[in-house]
């Protein structure tokens, strides 16, 4: 019983880490997108 609880706790933590990693990757993509827009704006102005 205890082992099952531990296992579900580990899965819960793993899931939280996976979501955080996804959020970080999406944030990075958005960041690179806006950096590109800003830098293109600098050269076109």
């Amino acid at each position, binding site marked *: 019983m205890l082992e099952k609880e531990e296992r579900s*706790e580990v899965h819960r933590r793993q899931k939280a880490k996976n979501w955080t990693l996804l959020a970080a990757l999406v944030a990075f993509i958005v960041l690179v997108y806006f950096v590109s827009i800003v830098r293109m704006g600098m050269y076109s102005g």
Partner: protein
Amino acid sequence: MTDTSIDIKAETTGVVLADGARVGDFIALLKPRVMSLVVFTGLAGLIAAPGHLHPFLAAVAVLCIAVSAGAAGAINMWYDRDIDAIMERTKSRPLPMGRVSPDEALSFGVTLTLFSVMLMGLAVNWTAAVLLAFASGFYVFVYTMWLKRSTPHNIVIGGAAGAFPPMIGWAAVTGSVDLQSSILFLIIFMWTPPHFWALALFREGDYAKAGVPMLPVVAGIAATKRQMLLYTLVLVPITLLPSVLGTAGIVYGLAATLLGLRFLHLAVKVLRDDGVRYAKQMFGFSIVYLFALFALLMLDRAPGVLSNLGFNGSMQIGLGG
């Protein structure tokens, strides 16, 4: 992650390993408290620098400095996990507690370092990126792997790594390294030894137990206190140079003088003190001191924003028009 890695009780310690790590454990690897000082001084360099940087790119530059510093901290924790487990101050970190595996900590640190340096180069400029990479490399290879365990002057030379952020912030705006940004570097470089030795004075037993040759452990308490005073004596005039060189105005200069005198006063008290009471006080004040200096630098950046607000008339008279 494999199913086998989910089966995770450490045989010897009984603590949860690797996959049991919470997101918070990875944040702890980034040494958030140290990061806050790094971000603050980096931002100060960015604001004090002459020129203009798009606010979004400035935010990206600060983010890169923060992430890179945190990543270097994670690699430091990976390398120092053996001594961290011995010292009171560090034994509850994620690695000695077995909550994060060494491999995870190392790959986390290296990945973030690469991302932050590349992003700095692509988004801001390559001078700032090279400085960022150099600062990380210096902290990891020179301080952590070489000096920390081999010489009592570890913190003197290794302190250079923590002195880079304002120079990086400055380079993000100007694209160069010059005398004014070197002075900002020098302020943190000279501040680091008295700051860390004050800590080492009341954590001496910890460092001795872990075999880290901090100055109080190797040279003794009296010699450390003398060195602290010497470094403080050199530091205080250096903190006035931004005013002299025109990086900041007269208000910064006046405040830096007062703060410096207080720091010097504490260094003298530490020297005269038989115990470590004033060392604790000096350690606490050293953090306030550095924060205040760089906050003033931002507020009174050239041509003296604060000075021109309230002191314009009187200062012009005082300085002979």
